[in-house]
């Protein structure tokens, strides 16, 4: 029996629920030699700001049990360079059936607005935009801003005026219900839950952080049960569609998010372990949906029984 896998994520029509997590999938084309990226439901591109950001010094990554910690600090070439270098490839990708969601970064509300204006102008092929108010690795415009209803709400309100295209918000793993309510009130079209979790890893010989700054962002399987919980909490509280992000390594992980209430699911760290992971997971998710005896994956969204 074949199952309809197409979902509508806040106005972005995806051929299946598999998306990629910003910052773990480059600008998409880095994966073109590994598999046919156009088979995915959507990809989310690495966050870009209006102007280029250098990011943090090395080391930017350390492995921890059950995942990794990163301190990239949103290095990006700025929207203009991004649109020029990656635009043609992404335009073609969207024509081939895979939606492109572009992530938007800033240090302040005006910076978010400026970046989004540039995206709106230079990226006509983008199906929607994801506003990142939750980077654990930057001082302003990062997790601190995204952890309060006021901070996140203010950015959303200003961005809502810039474009009619679908606007999503990448949320920090804190205070999710209150922040989600504020974002719903400000007109967000959907929520990506969660960004990486702030953590620390110390080298006990040098007594220094194993990454560039004292704190970094945790990704990988260790995030998964926490992210599923947050998706479920938010799904109970607001009517917005949710993109489940955190530790998805298998189709079962993706299925947990769907059951908890996510409409689509993003693959992050798994892309590093196996560059073809996202496509494999899309297939595993479909198999699971078949095993559940439904004709439409949407019947399984939020089907967790408690």
């Amino acid at each position, binding site marked *: 029996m074949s199952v309809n896998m197409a979902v509508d994520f806040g106005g972005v029509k995806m051929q299946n629920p598999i998306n990629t997590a910003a910052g773990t999938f480059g600008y998409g084309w880095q994966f073109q030699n590994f598999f046919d990226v156009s088979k995915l439901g959507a990809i989310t591109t690495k966050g870009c700001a209006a102007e280029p950001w250098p990011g943090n010094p*090395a080391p*930017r*990554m350390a492995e921890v049990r059950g995942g990794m910690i*990163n301190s990239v600090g949103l290095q990006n070439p700025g929207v203009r360079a991004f649109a020029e270098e990656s635009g043609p490839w992404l335009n073609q990708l969207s024509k081939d059936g895979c939606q492109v969601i572009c992530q938007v970064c800033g240090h302040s509300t005006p910076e978010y607005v400026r970046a989004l204006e540039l995206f709106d102008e230079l990226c006509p092929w983008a199906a929607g935009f994801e506003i990142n108010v939750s980077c654990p690795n930057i001082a302003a415009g990062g997790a601190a801003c995204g952890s309060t209803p006021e901070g996140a709400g203010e950015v959303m309100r200003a961005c809502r005026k810039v474009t009619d295209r679908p606007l999503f918000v990448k949320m920090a793993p804190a205070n999710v219900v209150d922040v989600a309510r504020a974002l719903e009130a400000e007109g967000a079209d959907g929520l990506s839950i969660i960004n990486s979790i702030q953590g620390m890893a110390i080298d006990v010989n040098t007594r220094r952080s194993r990454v560039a700054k004292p704190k970094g962002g945790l990704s990988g399987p260790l995030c998964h049960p926490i992210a599923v919980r947050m998706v479920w909490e938010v799904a109970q509280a607001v009517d917005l569609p949710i993109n489940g992000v955190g530790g998805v390594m298998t189709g079962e992980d993706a299925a947990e998010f769907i059951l908890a209430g996510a409409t689509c699911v993003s693959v992050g760290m798994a892309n590093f*372990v196996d*560059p073809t992971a996202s496509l494999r997971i899309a297939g595993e998710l479909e198999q699971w949906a078949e095993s559940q005896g439904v004709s439409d994956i949407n019947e399984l969204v939020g089907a967790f029984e408690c």
Partner: protein
Amino acid sequence: MHDFEVVSNDKIADGIYSIVISAPKLATMLEPGQFVNIAVPGVSANLLRVPLSYAKADPEAGTVEIWYAVVGEGTRNLSLMEPGSTSNLLGPGGHGWRVPEGAGRALLVAGGIGVPPILGAATILSQMGVAFDVCLGAASASKIVGVDELCALGAESVSISTDDGTAGTCGFCTDPAAALLAKGGYDYVASCGPAPMMKKVAQAAADAGVYCEVSLERMMSCGFGACNTCNVETVDGMKGACMCGPVFDASKVVVF
């Protein structure tokens, strides 16, 4: 992505192993200084691949030889792979040594487990017919690898330094390297080893006015340009080691 099968996997020095893998297509593609990113099997709390340079490739036999130090869980699990077992790797990654056209004489400086890419550099030099000397440093005599191979590739001299004096001169290999460079006659320097070592070599090369390349190590999450975790600060901004390196023009590197 290339599937591979382990041909052999043996200890060659204290804490250092040589693994020979069969991966015919890869063996024809690798250029000296490039790296591969290996999925090490075994249910593991560490998930990411292990990036490793290669020491030798034999396109005819379809094999690639890699030398690696066991430093953590990934490399420990790698050392447990038996002949006949299989896995996969990504690569070739990045780009390798760019020996300047018309170079007459080169100096290679390797520290610790920096030897494998230096073997690669020696291979090109010998193919190009460029004379070369080697300065090789290790913590201890028991950790020295590659001297036979370097001699076989035609090294005119190999000077050895050990931190504890158990072989060659007691001290760092940067001292003989600086001395040779000061004497003059070199057109190219290639170096791989600990960051402070490469920094010193780069400085000595700069002082002597010789073009110098270094193979830098960074923590890599993907190895193919998708994650931005392998950044190298250069005078031209942040560059990813996996795509713009691992071999860099030393004069452009701000942080080794």
